């Protein structure tokens, strides 16, 4: 049975260019479709168009089966949760359908059970990890018993455990006859369940031959040695302190540090001394909610909720103390954009720190962003904004570069550009720490800091001969 069909769909953007032209797609019951495509090609908009066609001024035909019930999960859970407790969140849709109050209880419990969220119904949403919030959003959709689930880029949001749990839920749904459409750059984790793989290019969908070889190729293009990187932990050994040569030129050290979070429940401990030197590239890895962002906040001086010793460039961290010597890219870095053009955005910090404005053009060229130099950063796609923010931090050429989850949402086109920029930065003596909720890019790292069970430990990385 065909649940949803798009026939010769066209959609114009505000600048009169076509986002989609002659776009066709048919989704039948029980099928799993995966849609990939470059950053900014309109994957997310396509999901919204499928779910809420009446909110778009499109040409062509979008047919919804009378039996169609759609569940839609967008990228960021934080902006979609509307209630304070998990029970109320899942029940929100039932309230809107005027389901009697007592009838809601079993429906909510069933939906939460389906996603494996076995928590009391009055658990505050704020107490959940990102992965749990994602599953809560899923439960909030499953409570309607949808026969088509639309999911937007889960891989970037969830850690490996979260992805494993999501795959299990989706597999169960597919077995129950529910259709699934996933929009995703990295299709590898979902290979086993995908029936149809599509590439969104030039406004149209092209079917990609689905084979193991294709998947491997996809992975290798996506993130250097990602396929191998998940096995990185077995190739690592605990870092030995006391390397005299390495002690010189130490830019950052953390000794016997304990970080207490704002809610004062969990803490992150660093028992030994961990350090960062000029030219180092350090990967900070840990699951969602383990304290990576909190650690960055202590290092840059945004927060001082720690005990122990943190020394950055020989000083105790304080906001604004390090000027152009410290570059920090926050999560969702598009939040920092405010200027009228991309070039002005880069020049802002250069002017404030009295650095040569030519740095801006140099970095834009390096990241293939020069054609966007006179565009408004606010009209760029998510990935492009991400890259502009990255460029604005990189162009001041700091001694230390801290990047909080810098690869989230970057596609195959932009990913290698960022990697090359980081390599170039490191080769010129810059030190980098980047975080991720899964071990990646082992071939690039000097060492990695792993957070497990609230303990951060430093490990050397044994690089592969290849």
């Amino acid at each position, binding site marked *: 049975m065909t649940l949803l069909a798009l026939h010769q769909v066209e959609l114009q953007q505000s600048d009169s260019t076509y986002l989609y032209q002659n776009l066709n797609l048919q989704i039948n019951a029980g099928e799993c479709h995966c849609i990939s495509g470059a950053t900014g090609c309109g994957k997310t908009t396509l999901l919204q168009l499928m779910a809420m066609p009446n909110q778009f001024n499109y040409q062509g035909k979008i047919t919804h089966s009378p039996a169609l019930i759609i569940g839609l999960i967008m990228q960021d859970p934080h902006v979609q949760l*509307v209630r304070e407790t998990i029970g109320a969140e899942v029940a929100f849709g039932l*309230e809107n359908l*005027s389901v009697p109050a007592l009838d809601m209880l079993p429906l909510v419990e069933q939906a939460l059970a389906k996603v494996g969220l076995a928590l009391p119904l009055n658990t505050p949403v704020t107490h959940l990890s990102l992965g749990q919030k994602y599953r809560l959003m899923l439960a909030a959709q499953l409570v309607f018993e949808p026969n088509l689930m639309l999911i937007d880029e889960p891989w970037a949001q969830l850690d490996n455990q979260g992805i494993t749990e999501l795959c299990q839920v989706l597999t169960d749904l597919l077995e129950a006859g529910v259709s699934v459409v996933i929009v995703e750059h990295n299709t590898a984790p979902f290979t086993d369940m995908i029936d149809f793989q599509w590439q969104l290019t030039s406004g149209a969908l092209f079917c990609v031959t689905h084979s193991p070889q294709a998947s491997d190729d996809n992975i290798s293009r996506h993130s250097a040695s990602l396929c191998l990187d998940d096995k990185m932990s077995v190739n690592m050994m605990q870092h030995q302190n006391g390397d005299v040569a390495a002690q010189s030129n130490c830019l950052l050290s953390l000794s016997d540090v304990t970080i207490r979070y704002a809610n004062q429940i969990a803490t992150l401990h660093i028992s030994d001394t961990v350090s960062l030197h000029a030219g180092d590239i350090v990967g900070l890895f840990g699951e969602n909610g383990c304290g990576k962002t909190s650690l960055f906040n202590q290092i840059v001086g945004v927060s001082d909720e720690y005990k122990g010793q943190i020394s950055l460039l020989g000083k105790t961290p304080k906001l604004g103390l390090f000027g152009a010597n410290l570059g920090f890219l926050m999560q969702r870095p598009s939040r920092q954009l405010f200027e009228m053009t991309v070039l002005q955005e880069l020049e802002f910090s250069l002017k404030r720190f009295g650095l040569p404005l030519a740095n801006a053009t140099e970095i834009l060229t390096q990241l293939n962003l020069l054609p966007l130099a006179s565009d408004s950063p606010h009209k760029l796609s998510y990935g492009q904004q991400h890259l502009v923010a990255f460029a604005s931090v990189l162009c001041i050429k700091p001694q230390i570069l801290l990047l909080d989850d810098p690869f989230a949402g970057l596609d195959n086109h932009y990913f290698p550009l960022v990697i090359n920029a980081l390599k170039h930065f490191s080769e010129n003596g810059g030190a980098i720490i980047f975080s991720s909720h899964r071990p990646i890019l082992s071939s690039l790292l000097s060492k990695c800091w792993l957070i497990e069970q609230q303990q951060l430990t430093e490990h050397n990385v044994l690089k592969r001969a290849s």
Partner: protein
Amino acid sequence: MIHLKSAKREKYTLTDLAPEKSALNNAILRSKQKLILCSAAIAFSIVLSMSAFLVLQQHLGYLLLINACLLVHAWLCQAKLAPLIKLFIFQSLVTIGLYVLLYGQERLFEAVIVVTRIILVMLPSWWLASTQSSHQISQVLSLLLPTKWAFVVTTSIKVLPFIGQEARDIYHIQCLRGARITPKALMNPINWYELVKCVLFPLLIQLLSLSKHIAHSANQRHFDKSSTHTHWPLN
């Protein structure tokens, strides 16, 4: 209209949950009690806020006393007082500063009274948002207001902490980018424009984006499908 298969198949009554019946009944009873308290709290905060402008100057002391009790109560309910105090200090400095600039020092006392009244208007609403859940407030407001308005009001209250965190994050990142918006730099009014430009402007963009996402999320969950809404029984 969506018909839920499970709802038909497994019609739920309290007797189906024999072992948990008592606990569930207690939870629902507690929720109802909380709802009544929330209704009273809403009425109380509205009256208190209105009084801040209506009472005579010589009676402001009584209002200050009542609001001090609200502060203590909110503090006992784990509410964070620091952001509120900072806001009040900022509000006081701006208002009194403008009065002094416009009218000179002879109307300083009048400025203090105006600031006090503004604080007394805001404080009950803050107390309400800090001590009551947005779901309960929504449930009460939906009795008085159209459902859409009740949702807008309560969601606005709910996202206040998120907005605050966004504002802090943007401020910190712009400080690290060299913006002249540190407390010391802001002593110079010339730098106030920089605060507006690189913190408030991106924050506004984030808020517009947030409202769009929440609207999509609510609509996608059938918010506009029915004119009548029921309510989750456990608070």
